[in-house]
């Protein structure tokens, strides 16, 4: 069975600083994808960043980047130059190359402080 663990239920960071959210996973799939989704307060969940497991290069999207360690099954999210709008629940998720067996972690609530 697939599992996704996020060991930090809550975190806070000062505006303009950098923060890293942790995620570990376990999967029996040979090929799979990893995702970070963001759910702002009372707003819809949106994709932050996606990583294909067979690609060694870490994905980046503007201020968001990941540190993907395949052997360690670790997929952390780094947010640089944190902004107030980054305040949200962040969910790590894994999904197979084919199929629907997506698994989400319990989430990390991030607060960006002014």
């Amino acid at each position, binding site marked *: 069975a697939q599992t996704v663990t996020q060991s930090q*239920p809550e975190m806070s960071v000062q505006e303009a600083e950098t923060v890293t959210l942790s995620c570990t996973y376990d999967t029996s799939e040979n*090929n799979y994808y990893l995702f970070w989704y963001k759910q702002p307060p009372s*707003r819809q969940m949106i994709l932050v960043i*996606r990583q294909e497991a067979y690609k060694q290069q870490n994905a980046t999207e503007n201020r968001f980047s990941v540190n993907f360690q395949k052997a360690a099954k670790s997929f952390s999210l780094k947010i640089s130059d944190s902004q107030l709008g980054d305040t949200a629940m962040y*969910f790590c998720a894994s999904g197979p*190359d*084919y199929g629907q067996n997506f698994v989400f972690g319990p*989430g990390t609530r991030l607060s960006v402080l002014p």
Partner: protein
Amino acid sequence: DVKVTQSSRYLVKRTGEKVFLECVQDMDHENMFWYRQDPGLGLRLIYFSYDVKMKEKGDIPEGYSVSREKKERFSLILESASTNQTSMYLCASRWAGGGETQYFGPGTRLLVL
């Protein structure tokens, strides 16, 4: 922009009532999902549909059923609501294929009294 809408943002029902939650997407996505979101548990998949009239059980299907008569619409049905089904329900859709992004609706917060 992809738009996924859900019929209600908040819903209050009584134990034993039949409850319908509807989800509509406007991007012709093949796949649609219903999740339940509870604090500390993340999102758990209830049901998945990969095409019209096609469905598969997710991790927690007990007490729920689904219907997908048209490609754009995916309904979640609670045949006889119980208090332990009080939760946030999220619908999502996506293109078929590996690694495709899921697009989420705003969620329905259901309270069963």
